[in-house]
């Protein structure tokens, strides 16, 4: 048996296939097949109820991705007392808003406002005023775009902050001081705890009445804040807890990278008169380059997959959907409303977006290395 694996020549190829086959089989069964099935489902209107599904082609994608800019009719002199189904009204905060309830209108919308009929299936997302004319940014599925926006904000904050913090912590715990293992274990412990448990604990910490965080900032005369109930603070609150939870993982990878740097480089730099900062800038950072690339790529992908903490802390997508994310959106539509076909299409779009971002990152990083 041993000879079989050791044999050179033509047998080597066979050996290689045998050795990789378990991995390939598992990969095909659990990754490739479900993904292909997802693409197939995304072109149907499959429902959870098990009713026969029809092929709808690219309709789901059209629903998700359709965006339009609609020129609105001029604002009226006086706003109506009751909000019209379609038209201008004054919202409770005094601003002018455009209500667009096309389902409430039986006849052609063109009889009310000329040229708006083709936006019947759209919803108003944001009003913009360009050169004195009001426009409405229209989408068929505004919540998808809100989710995408939240994902991007989350990634833009979490990737740089978490990477920098992880590097800082890794340098701290890389010193040869007593009890260093205690600190390493402490920083790493949130990573091994289940995210759901951490999210439950943090929703208590953020509680406006009894939460520890409000108690603590109350000492300095701040707050109390409705962390998870206010549209401007809900996503930041989730960002803070996510960084706290995830930073230990990147820290350990940086630590491994730091310990790979030969000590004599620092000695040589020290003899050349390099200060601590210069040693960090010209020895540590360049030597950590590959570690850094790995950390940035994985953090980006992980931050786009944001779901667990959002679903536990703000199960309904947060105030004004400020914590809705793409995965949350797919699960709400698929699992909550039973629209499996539509949710599959959302997942496919999601994979496409993450793939594009990863490829773009790789291209930027490799073009930088060409400059070196």
């Amino acid at each position, binding site marked *: 048996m041993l000879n079989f694996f050791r044999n050179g020549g033509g047998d080597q190829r066979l050996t290689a296939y045998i050795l990789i086959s378990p991995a390939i089989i598992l990969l095909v069964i659990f990754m490739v097949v479900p993904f292909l099935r997802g693409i197939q489902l995304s072109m149907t209107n499959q429902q*959870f109820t*098990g009713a026969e599904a029809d092929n709808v082609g690219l309709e789901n994608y059209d629903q998700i991705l359709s965006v339009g800019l609609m020129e609105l009719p001029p604002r009226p002199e006086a706003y109506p007392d009751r909000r019209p189904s379609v038209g201008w009204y004054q919202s409770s905060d005094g601003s002018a808003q455009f209500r667009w*309830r096309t*389902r409430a209108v039986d006849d052609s919308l063109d009889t009310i406002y000329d040229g708006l009929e083709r936006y019947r299936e759209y919803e108003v997302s944001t009003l913009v005023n360009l050169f004195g004319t009001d426009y409405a940014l229209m989408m068929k599925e505004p919540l998808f775009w809100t989710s995408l926006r939240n994902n991007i904000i989350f990634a833009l904050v979490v990737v740089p902050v978490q990477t920098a913090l992880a590097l800082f912590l890794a340098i701290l715990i890389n010193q040869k001081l007593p009890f260093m293992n205690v600190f390493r274990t402490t920083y790493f412990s949130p990573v091994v705890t289940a995210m759901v448990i951490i999210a439950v604990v943090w929703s208590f910490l953020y509680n406006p009445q009894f939460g520890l965080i409000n108690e603590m900032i109350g000492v300095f005369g701040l707050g109390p804040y409705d962390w998870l109930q206010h549209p401007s603070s809900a996503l930041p609150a989730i960002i803070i807890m996510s960084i706290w939870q995830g930073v230990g993982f990147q820290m350990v990878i940086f630590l491994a990278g730091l310990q790979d740097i030969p000590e004599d480089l620092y000695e040589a730099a020290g003899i050349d008169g390099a200060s601590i900062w210069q040693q960090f800038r010209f020895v540590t950072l360049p030597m950590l380059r590959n570690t850094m690339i790995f950390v940035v790529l994985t953090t980006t992908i992980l931050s786009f997959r944001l779901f667990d903490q959002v679903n536990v802390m703000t*199960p309904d997508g947060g105030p004004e959907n400020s914590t809705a994310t793409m995965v949350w959106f797919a699960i709400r539509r698929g699992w909550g409303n039973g629209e*499996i076909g539509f949710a599959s299409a959302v997942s496919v779009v999601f994979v496409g977006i993450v793939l594009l971002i990863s490829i773009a990152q790789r291209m930027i990083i490799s073009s930088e290395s060409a400059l070196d």
Partner: protein
Amino acid sequence: MKRIGLFSVVLSLMLLLVLPATAQDTTEISLWFHSGQGGERDELDNQITAFNEMQDEYEIVPLEVPEGSYNDQVRAAALSGDLPCVLDFDGPFIYSYVFAGDLIPLDDYVTDEILEDTLPSIIAQGTVDDTLYSLGQFDSGLAIWGNRAMLDEAGVRIPEGIDDAWTLEEFNAAMDALAEVVPDDGYVIDFKFSYTGEWYSYGFGPQMRSFGGDTINRDGYDTAEGVLNGPEAVAWGEWLQNLFDMGYATATPVDPDADFTEGRVPLSYAGHWVYNLYQEAIGDDLVLIPQPDFGNGAVTGMGSWNWGITSSCESPDGAWAFIEFLMQPENTASMADANGAVPSRISALEADDRYGEGGDLYIYRQQLEQGVAVPRSQTAVYPTISTAMETAVNAIARGEDVQEVLDSAVDEVDSAIEAME
């Protein structure tokens, strides 16, 4: 050698234990139920054990599924063909299950004795298109729990029955008066915002209806436009939002049950399921206040968890034998004892002092028998109404624009109706 000897002894013992069980001719019947409150769960366990012991033709094999996502899991199981034989489910979901063909009719099994002695609301809940699909051991009761000592201190009138229920003005005045007597870390009314899922449709749908709105247009069930986001529904939303703005209610309670039992909040809007807990904690101070009339007549929720047989069941006779056992008056009575609900067998209800005039739970019976209780929307898109209401009520409590919140809820319900067509 010694070790092998011991091993074979153990093995033959195990075989001896296993053999008689496989030799017997029992049919296993799978069953799913929602993992609700402790007392209810234990009582069901007892009844399953009793059923398994009293006969040896069938054996019920129960599986407990978490309540928060119960309906989602049932639908996932339906899609993959893994439904159990006997299924319990919350009343209004019956329309979507029947629409999907997941349940079989019970008409051929049910006896006249059961039909005549069961609350009409239970029969109505289990009937779709004149066909009976499900039966339940109990109906739900929904009204406002009050702390008599705190209400008296604030000088708030406690209604005797449904005929002198609070009006909207009286309710609002009670809020202001009670705000004066609650402790610093307290609030006036607990709306159970610690719950997730079905609660928001069950609990707040009736309030909306009492204001004149509803969760769907019940005339044809083909849209929610103009009803769920009409002026009456908006009036309800603004009223509810004001209670949160004034600090009378909280959307972020940590342990609302304890807030009531420990005297931090004088009113608690919750169903029958908290009765035993509250009763043990504050005893004679516990009062049940009938659902107020918010302008369009008092309305409350009804319907509760009930049992059906799925179309994938291979031994529906056994499944029925179990449901029939559950529906025996003494079993509905002991379940109602365990969870504070209204027993579905009329004979059990009449034998229960708590439902007699002056009894702790008499209001529930009045509400059910005199038309205050209204079923939830009888439509196959009910699951979407349920999630849309959960989102909307939470958004309103957080202070978002009521009209916009309800418009989005309509969009969600109406697109589900369109997807169904």
